[in-house]
């Protein structure tokens, strides 16, 4: 049910950039900063790796009720998400599947609690990326058939689609000046998708950034 990833699926690519890593030992390592120009790139088009975050997945007819009993507020509609009080989020993928991304406490609780009948674990060894900046929609229009500007009017919507041929889950976390999105894909596609998005981001004047610069 849980995937606590010691290393990001794109760890090797990140390491080659010689970034500033987090110093925590109990959590998966994450890139705090690539270089001094992170904020500058983030304003134009920033791509950050968020694969280190704790996440858990479950699906089945009994999952909504089971998560509610654990104190997790769940979205009422399919393909929507809601924030959690501790800063994470719950995404409802279809009618009966859920993705919880939060601090280790809640994710551990979900992992260790006995599952109810009709609740099945979903392994999430995902690559997770953050995209932000003024030109982010130009990148998405180049790689996907969906116009993500519609998410500005429906901020709680989750979209399951494909980007550059990879099946992804995407949602809008825009709450500042520029649009911002979160993307999850199967970890085995992580390197390909990161390289593809990073190449386009660089062409558009942005590039890779650390988690501190993600808006």
């Amino acid at each position, binding site marked *: 049910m849980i995937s606590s990833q010691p290393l990001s699926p794109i760890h090797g690519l990140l390491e080659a950039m010689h970034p500033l890593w987090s110093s925590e030992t109990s959590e998966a390592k994450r890139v705090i900063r690539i270089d001094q120009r992170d904020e500058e790139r983030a304003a134009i088009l920033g791509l950050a790796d968020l694969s280190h975050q704790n996440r858990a997945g479950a699906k089945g007819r009994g999952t909504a009720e089971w998560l509610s009993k654990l104190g997790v507020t769940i979205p009422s509609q399919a*393909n929507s998400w809601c924030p959690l009080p501790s800063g994470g989020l719950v995404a409802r993928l*279809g009618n009966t599947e859920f993705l919880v991304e939060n601090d280790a406490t809640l994710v551990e609780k979900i992992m260790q609690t006995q599952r109810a009948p009709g609740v099945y674990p979903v392994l999430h060894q995902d690559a997770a990326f953050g995209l932000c900046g003024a030109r982010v929609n130009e990148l998405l229009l180049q790689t996907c*058939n*969906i116009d993500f500007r519609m998410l500005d009017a429906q901020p709680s919507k989750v*979209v*399951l689609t*494909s980007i550059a041929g990879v*099946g992804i889950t995407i949602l809008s976390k825009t709450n500042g000046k520029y649009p911002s999105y979160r993307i999850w894909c199967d970890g085995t596609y992580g390197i390909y998708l990161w390289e593809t998005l990073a190449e386009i981001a660089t062409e558009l004047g942005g590039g890779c950034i650390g988690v501190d610069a993600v808006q």
Partner: protein
Amino acid sequence: MKIMTCPINGARPVSEFFCWGEIRPMPDPDTCSDDEWAAYVFNRNGAPGVKKEWWCHTASNTWFIAERDTEKDVVLNTYLFEGEIR
């Protein structure tokens, strides 16, 4: 671009889907004749017309049924499967 409408995810380009073929109820192998069983295993209906087919939205792995007029190449209806195929 051809558009298919997933009952959960809405209208999407058909490149996000694949077709698993016409819904074909399986005859009871214990009671059907050899000819009926052979027809089920080996034969497919290639005649154009309105057909019910299994389709899958690959990005979300949503399986659903599409009623499609294969003569006019028009999708008439899509909906989630409920119950058993009879």
